[in-house]
């Protein structure tokens, strides 16, 4: 028997995810009419602070995520973010679009800043060697994981807020799609359609060079 909405709300204990604010009105997609990363980098090279703020908004999560994975400490990772963006500000004028995508250049600059900080932190492992082989991923695997996370987190920034919200809920809130639908007060079909649309846009972004 189908339950009405009130019953559903009592029956399901929905976890409350922490999400970024979503505007109440639909917003235009930012990709088409917003400057590309390469254009922003060129402007930052000319000391355009507004361009730097836009670039920061697009990349602060990927940079912080990368720093967290490499450094394993939020405090050090925050400092590394500061250093990475300071390096981007200093070096933006050296970026040459013909040599590669802006996303790759930013990844390299951020990674170098993080590695510099890692070196300054000094050795953190015990001197004794472990008796068993580590099950942790090796450097190559970690680098690949970092690259995937960087690209995915960067692409998420270009989704519409409503699309990003449904992806975050669907993948990382622990809720089922029925629970997501209830949480957003939307029909289940709308949630699935929105998830599919967001996934399709993510797929397009991830297939191309960021």
């Amino acid at each position, binding site marked *: 028997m189908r339950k009405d909405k009130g019953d559903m709300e009592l029956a399901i204990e929905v976890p409350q995810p*922490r999400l970024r604010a979503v505007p109440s009105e639909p917003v235009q997609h930012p990709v088409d009419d917003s400057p590309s990363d390469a254009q922003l980098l060129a402007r930052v090279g000319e*000391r355009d*602070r*507004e361009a*730097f*703020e836009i670039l*920061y*908004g697009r990349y*602060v*999560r*990927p940079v*912080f*995520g990368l720093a*967290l994975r490499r450094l394993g400490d*939020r405090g050090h990772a*925050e400092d590394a*973010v*500061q250093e990475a*963006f*300071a390096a981007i*500000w*200093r*070096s933006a004028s050296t970026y040459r679009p013909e040599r590669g995508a802006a996303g790759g250049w930013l990844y390299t600059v951020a990674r170098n800043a993080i590695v510099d900080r890692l070196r300054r932190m000094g050795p953190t492992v015990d001197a004794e060697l472990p008796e068993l082989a580590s099950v942790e991923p090796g450097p190559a695997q970690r680098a690949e*994981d970092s690259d*995937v*996370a960087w*690209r*995915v*987190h960067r692409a*998420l920034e270009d989704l519409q807020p409503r699309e990003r919200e449904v*992806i*975050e809920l*669907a*993948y*990382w809130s*622990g809720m*089922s*799609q029925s629970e997501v639908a209830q949480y957003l007060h939307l029909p289940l079909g709308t949630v*699935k*359609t929105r*998830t*599919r649309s967001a*996934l*399709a846009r*993510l*797929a397009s972004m*991830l*297939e191309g060079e960021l």
Partner: protein
Amino acid sequence: MNRDRNLDELIGADTTGAERERLQRAHDMLLEAGPPPELSPKLEEGPTLGMTLQRRRAVKRRAMLLLAATLAIVGVFLAGYAVANRGGSSPSAVKSLALEGTVVAPNAQATLEVWQSNADNWPMTLTAVGLPPLPEHRYYEVYLVRHGKPWGACGAFRAPENPQQPVTVTLTAPYTLRKGDSWVVTRPGTGAAEPGKTVLRPAPVTA
């Protein structure tokens, strides 16, 4: 904890063929990437002043050499001036700084001159124009910036009703100044809903 996700559960089973494979790849990458990190309030605020105060080393080195040469010339000139005018001297700024408006006050600009100290009290003269007037009992504040962050208050002032009218105020930095110190002017916030904002910050040095 996240439940295992399969694509059918998330989008239904209607999509097939090549499109389905595209979505599956994006789905797999999302699972592999994990959630984006939650930012601290500090990182959420946006770029800090410290990020843009740092300059390229080569430029900095050249600027330091130029500054040293300038200081040497000024020193020689001042020594000569002092010798020629024993007993009567006028003050000269030990540091001059051009400030430019942020997005909060894009039309604002200012100059800040720091004069010779007296027992670590550094008198300063700020001349600003283009700052919008603030409501009653609210003041612009001048902060010494150290390591990229507001470090010490140097005084407060009000802007004229007509933003085109320059305002000149005398302030004091009662601190031991260090190399690299800088200044910003901030506008007060209205509590948690609207934090204070930087309205003037050092203009970039053009080579």
